[in-house]
């Protein structure tokens, strides 16, 4: 009875894993096929003669390295800048007493309910006026500070004992010294979590870069891929290679830093 139940549960789990992984596995497999090979019935599950042709085409004919570079630069820049700005604010909200602190914080939390799409039209007009449409700043500026990031860091910094900060102050450390050499190292786990969230969020983001990057050479990978997939409807294998190139960097980051990412979901899950 117990054995039978164990077998059923495992069968289910493995079956679900196969279904979940199938699209990703097929994406990788088809990316190594020759032109047109995937368009057959029944669909082939193994390349006849594995080839890197599709990847070569992506980099030679389709300018993929440019998109890869755009995505990498923007994701790293947004992550780094927002981490500094959010951690400063999160620390201030957690450990300083000043008039209006709780009111401002509550206002910020309440405004998280406003979907980003609402801001996009005026933001585009503003950036257009400033001449920042179709520049890296167009993506970096709205990502510089984030309420969720400030919230995460504040919650974490609250647990740092005041006595530690007082001791550093008595030793003669100034406010910024304390922030940089005491608070930041202590907040390292939440900073790593937030860094992964921001990096992946920026890498995977689609709607805003689609709006603000109007020139082909400024496209991020998802925007370029969406654009190419419209032109190359028949080139299954090529598009699979493009998808692999888009997905693999984030999947790798996740694989390596899984622990931090999952703990971040929990931290967000206890928002109330």
């Amino acid at each position, binding site marked *: 009875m117990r054995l039978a139940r164990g077998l059923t549960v495992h069968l289910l789990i493995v079956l679900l894993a196969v279904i979940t992984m199938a699209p990703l596995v097929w994406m990788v497999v088809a990316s190594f096929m020759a032109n047109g090979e995937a368009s057959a019935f029944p669909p082939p599950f193994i390349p006849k003669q594995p080839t890197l042709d599709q990847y070569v085409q992506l980099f030679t004919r389709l300018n993929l390295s440019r998109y890869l570079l755009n995505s990498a630069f923007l994701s790293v820049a947004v992550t780094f800048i927002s981490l500094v700005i959010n951690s400063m604010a999160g620390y201030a909200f957690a450990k300083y007493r000043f008039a209006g602190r709780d009111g401002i914080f509550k206002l910020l939390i309440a405004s998280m309910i406003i979907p980003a799409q609402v801001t996009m039209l005026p933001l585009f007009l*503003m950036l257009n006026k400033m001449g920042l449409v179709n520049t890296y700043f167009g993506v970096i500026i709205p990502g510089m500070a984030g309420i969720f990031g400030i919230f995460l860091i504040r919650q974490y910094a609250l647990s740092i004992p005041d006595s530690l900060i007082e001791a550093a102050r008595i030793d003669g450390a100034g406010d910024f010294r304390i922030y940089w050499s005491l608070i930041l190292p202590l907040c390292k786990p939440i900073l790593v979590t937030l860094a992964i969230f921001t990096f992946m969020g920026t890498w995977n983001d689609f709607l805003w870069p689609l*709006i603000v990057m109007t020139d082909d050479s400024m496209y991020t990978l998802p925007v370029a891929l969406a654009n190419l997939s419209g032109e190359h409807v028949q080139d299954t294998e090529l598009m699979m290679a493009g998808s692999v190139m888009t997905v693999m960097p984030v999947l790798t980051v996740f*694989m390596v830093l899984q622990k931090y990412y999952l703990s971040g979901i929990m931290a967000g899950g206890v928002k109330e």
Partner: protein
Amino acid sequence: MADSSRTYAYVVLLAPALIAIALFFFVPVLAAFVLSFTDFDIYALGNIGVARFVGFRNYLQLFQDPLFWQALRNTIYFLLVGGPLSIAVSLGTALLLNAKLVRLKALFRFLYFAPVVTTLVAVAVVWRFIYHPRFGILNFLLSLIGINPVDWLGDPHWAMPAIILLAVWKGFGYNMIIFIAGLQNIPTSLYEAASIDGAGGWHRFRYITLPMLAPTTLFITVITMIGYFQLFAEPYVMTQGGPLNSTLSIVLLMYQQGFRWWNMGYSAAVAFVLFLLILLVSLVQNRLQRRAAH
């Protein structure tokens, strides 16, 4: 606690974040509200003086626009079918992974979660080929059990279900993680006591697991609904809103009106309707939560 009478360092620490959020979040929100009462269009883009206040005209026009109602219906269809389905799959997988006798939990958790971190545009491109009427894997698998090929993305009846399937596949791992955390917070003593009283598996699930998970489920329902309201990339990549507008979503309508036709006043009104819908869901959640607390 730092002594604030001695230092204004907090001003410097806060300033970059608060200025950035005020300038690039709060100002645009207010501007969008104003914009939704103007006829801002492509001519105003060149010369803002051309734009005029038109009162509630955009909203009135919106409520008479069959395309808007279609987008609203589609989005609600996506949300009411896809949301519960996704939550059910999340709960099911969480229960499976939480079962005591399961081996290699970390591996399976990773496999189930992997789609969550993938790029939506990329997997939408992949799924477009999975749904291919002639060469797609899905129709091939269905043909094995004798089902005739379906033109998933080309048939107005099947396009939205196809998008729902992709969304569930892509997202269920996220809620699964939250459910697992919720399950692990249920004291095992409750189950032990129930077992002594002779409660079977189904009864333990019905009278212990489900009630104890209620706060988690409420939270998950709300974040899922808010997320599902913002459907955009799937139809943009896979169907462009078609066929026959059967997958046109509210955000896609906002994007098309604002950034393809440059009807920015009209588009801002669409954005605000989206905001109001999300606000409504959150208020209902707040009510329910307060009631549960009593």
